[in-house]
């Protein structure tokens, strides 16, 4: 049945990496079983990953379209599906539907400064955005990344972050909540660090992703610094089933997170009634 939006594409699990020291976060690199398959996406979009018999769940794409040969997802083990995903072994097959939703407005960022603010495992699609911007580095002015976690062991993509730190075209600020021995970078909550190191709002677009409490305290900081709501973007999460705006559960007001989002500007969110 061509064009059946419920039929997943078969993917092979090429690489599995445990990301966090508590082993609740695991990264999967997937490739198409049918090598001719193509897949166009942009940073910020998401896919539905599934194991038939266990279920399906949405995940933001952590790889960048500029990286060829794999799609990357980082999965936090919380429920039935994510636990089943954690039990996958290299070489096994899983289903993928997507890409779904909108993306970070990289076209608007053209020639502008970009500030990425992130906390915890919400960094996935922001990694995608970062890598995408590095690949088109000439299109963007200053790039600043603020990324925090409770402790060093919970930061995603550590090896890659170490590479990022060496770049001279990026301001990277890593922070943890409480100081631990051997940590030589920032200590403090993301909102406070943002207040301290954020660039001038002039010609700057902010992208904020993280746990609700982080977003709640970071948005006022950005507004205080002079970022207009139209230039602050965030990505929302909701329980989803279909991913295509039909199953009716991920709406906030008349906007569906799966089709109208998951990326929304703060200005858009202010117009929506419900909490996010």
């Amino acid at each position: 049945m061509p064009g059946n939006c419920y039929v997943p594409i078969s993917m092979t699990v090429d690489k599995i990496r445990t990301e966090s020291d508590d082993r609740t976060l695991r990264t999967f690199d997937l490739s198409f079983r049918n090598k001719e398959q193509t897949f166009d996406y942009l940073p910020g979009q998401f896919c539905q990953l599934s194991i038939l018999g266990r279920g399906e769940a949405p995940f933001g794409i952590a790889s960048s379209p500029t990286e060829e040969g794999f799609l990357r997802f980082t999965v936090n083990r919380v429920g039935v599906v994510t636990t089943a995903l954690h039990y996958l072994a290299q070489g096994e097959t899983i289903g993928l539907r997507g890409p779904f939703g909108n993306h970070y407005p990289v076209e608007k960022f053209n020639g502008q400064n970009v500030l990425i603010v992130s906390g915890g495992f919400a960094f996935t699609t922001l990694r995608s955005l970062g890598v995408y911007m590095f690949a088109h580095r000439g299109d963007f002015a200053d790039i600043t990344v603020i990324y925090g976690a409770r402790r060093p062991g919970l930061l995603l993509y550590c090896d890659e972050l170490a590479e990022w730190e060496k770049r001279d075209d990026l301001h990277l600020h890593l922070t943890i909540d409480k100081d631990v021995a051997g940590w030589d970078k920032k200590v403090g909550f993301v909102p406070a660090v943002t207040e301290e190191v954020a660039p001038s709002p002039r010609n700057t677009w902010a992208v904020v992703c993280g746990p609700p409490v982080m977003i709640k305290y970071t948005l006022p900081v950005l507004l205080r610094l002079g970022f207009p709501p139209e230039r602050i973007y965030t990505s929302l999460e909701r329980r989803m089933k279909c991913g295509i705006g039909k199953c009716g559960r991920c709406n906030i007001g008349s906007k569906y997170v799966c089709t109208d989002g998951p990326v929304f500007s703060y200005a858009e969110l202010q117009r929506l009634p419900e909490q996010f």
Partner: protein
Amino acid sequence: MSKVLRLDKKRLDEFVAALFSRYRLFGPVDSGGLMRFAEVESAGALRLDIANPDESAKGIFFPQTETLLTGNQGEVVPTQEPDRPIAVIGIRPCDARGLLMLDKVFGTGEHNDPYWTRRYRNALIVTMGCSTPRAGCFCNWLGSGPFSTEGSDIALTDIGDAILLEPRSEKGMDFLKGIPCEEASAADLRKAADIKERAESSMAGKVDVSSLKSALDRAWDSPLWDELTGKCLSCAACAYLCPTCHCFDIQDEKASGTNQCRRIRIWDSCMAPLFTKEASGHNPRPTGKERLRQRVMHKFNYFVDVYGEMACVGCGRCIRSCPVNLDIREVLVRFINAG
């Protein structure tokens, strides 16, 4: 549209037989004392004389439980729909209109739903005008009526000894070409007009709902939500009987002791706590109040934003079956009055 035909009731079987010859036929049947829409095996099983069943006709095209895919770990096969298209007879104008609304959800947009589209877009919808609207019917509030023909391919009117058949679409006209029928006489048409007139005037006081959408735009923090939630049981009777409620869940099942799995789609209801509860335990709609608000807003506000009309056809099923008689008409009127 085209000329109205007259079918003597004695010849109804012929009409049904013609439907059988081309379609899988669904219609109202008596299933162990319960009237419901089901696939009909013979003309005799059809009950065109009964009131609109308590369950809507949406399940014909959007079954409560539907297997999307089957397979084992390696191989996934989508369920194949039988080639033979569906015809529905005896569906009321409200349900036919409800199907049109569902088609907006499932059949339009970037991703169309293949299961729905294949069934609905190839179907022949034969509606039966409502000569005696029931208590609780309020289709007239919503720009429709007991003899409305939206979403109908052939509209039937029972005039006593005969049934008038009016083609309402190319598909309907095409089908009627094969039915040897005389044209309805002027007297027949007058009779039908009378029945229609009587049915329309029998419906209880109509309320103008044109300001409802904007009233609800301002109603997010209304204290009315608390008041209404007080008695609502948060069951899904209203949603599951509703011809336009379409929210669903997708679940996987695995046969015990084998690798045989299936992915099913089942109706879901925004009134259930689990509907939006995330794996982390966080629930953006934590209490009955947020869930009731979602249901009312989805139908009478959000759906208008997205699809340009209210997702209600006024069939009155939720009113008749609500265990605590939480009457949606009263809810609407109160929001309209609250402005």
